[in-house]
């Protein structure tokens, strides 16, 4: 069967059979998964690309003019990503800094790590429900993209903490010692030495978090609503602007895919959105790989 058998004693029939069967199984599994991947990606592109047009991406849907468009969903997705990152970055990076630079109490560290692991194992439907109760109802944000961003902060916190921690650990201890020996305080040392050298890890964390936010549907369906029209982000007076800007609600890309597919049975539009999501997933993977490689080099 292969070359090394000729120099060793021939295998018994049973062993040869087992070997052959296992080889077939391993290759079959690999072929099955590759075929599945090719089919999945090919099918989405085949069904979606013909329905994709500039107009679909850049306009709002209008029944009168018979136009379908996902521009509002794109705006909402960007809005949610922006606010989630604005909130999560200081929290997540700060938390990682505490864990790697300050923490001396081992018990507290293990409790925090347990909490982070619990959060990362929690299914999104639980964040959806808790987000709805805490942010939409208790804190009075109502059904809004902002409430969605807060719920997503809970969900992406472990991602940011983990990647930041990993890159903080790669900063050589001698940098820290050098800085402290020159008389800088701990915060000064973190700000001027540690953070700049761990920026790659933080960027990787952000990319991964964006990936999760773009792919998330349950949380946003529960907290940010399923409206397909453009939300009103502006206003005439300052007060109105604030309440509109922070109270805006509507569907993101994933939620609008769900609405197209499940509630309206507009499958052409659903597949077009799926192509957009696939492209975003591809770009995010690429960016994460790139940032990760840079991280490793340092």
């Amino acid at each position, binding site marked *: 069967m292969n070359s090394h058998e000729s120099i*060793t*004693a021939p295998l018994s029939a049973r062993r040869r059979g*087992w*070997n052959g069967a*296992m080889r077939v199984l*391993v290759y*079959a*599994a*690999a072929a*099955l*998964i590759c075929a599945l*991947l090719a089919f*999945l*990606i090919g*099918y989405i592109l085949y069904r979606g690309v013909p329905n994709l047009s500039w107009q679909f991406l850049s306009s709002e849907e209008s029944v009168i003019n018979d136009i379908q468009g996902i521009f509002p969903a794109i705006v909402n997705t960007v809005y949610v990503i922006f606010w989630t990152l604005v909130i999560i970055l*200081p929290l*997540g990076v*700060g*938390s990682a*800094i*505490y*864990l790697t630079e*300050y923490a001396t109490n081992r018990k*507290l560290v293990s409790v*925090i790590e347990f*909490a982070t692991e*619990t*959060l990362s*194992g929690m*299914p*999104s*439907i639980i*964040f959806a*429900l*808790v987000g709805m*109760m*805490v942010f939409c109802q208790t804190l009075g944000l109502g059904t809004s993209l902002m409430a969605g961003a807060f719920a997503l902060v*809970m969900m992406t916190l472990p991602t940011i903490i983990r990647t930041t921690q990993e890159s903080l650990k790669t900063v050589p201890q001698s940098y820290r010692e050098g800085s402290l020996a*020159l*008389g800088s305080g*701990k*915060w*000064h040392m973190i700000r001027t030495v540690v953070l700049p050298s761990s920026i790659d890890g933080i960027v990787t964390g952000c990319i991964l978090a964006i990936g999760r936010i*773009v*792919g998330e*549907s*349950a949380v946003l369906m*529960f907290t940010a609503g399923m409206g397909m029209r453009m939300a009103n982000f502006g206003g005439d007076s300052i007060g109105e602007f604030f309440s509109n800007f922070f109270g805006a609600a509507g569907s993101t890309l*994933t939620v609008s895919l*769900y609405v197209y*597919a*499940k509630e309206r049975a507009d*499958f052409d539009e*659903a*597949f077009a959105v*799926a192509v957009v*999501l696939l492209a975003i*997933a*591809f770009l995010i*993977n690429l960016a994460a790989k790139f940032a990760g490689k840079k991280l490793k080099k340092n």
Partner: protein
Amino acid sequence: MQATPRAKAEGKDAANVFVQEDPAAGIDSKRGVKDAMENVMKGVFVACGLVAIAFVLVISVYLVISGIPAIREVGLWNFLAGTNWEPAHKTDPSFGILPMILTSVYGTAGAIIIGVPVGFLMAVFLSKVANKKAAAVIREVVDLLAGIPSVVYGLVGMMVLVPAIREAFNLPAGDSLFAAIIVLAIMILPSIISVSETALNAVPREYEEASLALGATELETYFRVSAPAAKSGIAAAVVLGVGRAIGEAMAILMVAGNVANMPGLLSSVKFLTTAIAGEMGYAGDLHRQALFSIVLVLFLFIMLINAALNMFLKRDKEGN
């Protein structure tokens, strides 16, 4: 500013003396501000560190408080073991979630039974059998699979799998537990592949070399030496898959049919997660509270699974 390094080098007392002697009194106050800043920032970082704990506490407290009332009203036994779920019935609503618990358990088990062997064999392929370049390319694509949003899986399942099942089994509708199992199995593949591949890669090279030197074939070595040596990592992959499968909502909401039947492979079913995702929008009063109780049940399942996962991961770390 320049005083500080020397002062530090000479020890704390020397620093005080030095500062006192220094004619430039400005250093003292500047240092006070700096120290205050240091303390403030330390406080800020401690607070950030505690955020994760606060989130978990908020989630637990909210789920328990909102989940208890309906269970009280319906009765724990009626709730968990009741086989009828008719929360919207006008005169005689019933709130038994046994069908959903069983559906979630069967659905997860089915996804594991299909996904784990295929994923494990794929991990062996990527880690040991395939040449490095091919493995790297396939790994990229598997990563892409992990990044595809769950609604996209739901959409493809809805358009391809459901009609195929309807045709193949001659059913009035193809939305079924079987369709959900397939979708779940595909969705858990990436994490099973990557976690088991990591575990297989961590097996010391000497184990395999010893086995080969004793005359075992390559495949015998991979399955009878490497795999047992990586078993706690592979167990972690299985548990991770269980957690993913039991928590998934949106994809299976689109293919499972959403009728609270007792689970049958080809019948339309409702999972714990799909009940929550599908009914929260229109549920009122006791129905809504019952959905909160379902979330509490799901939460308890997840906590158990997480505990198991942590155990395996810990054992893995100690093992190496």
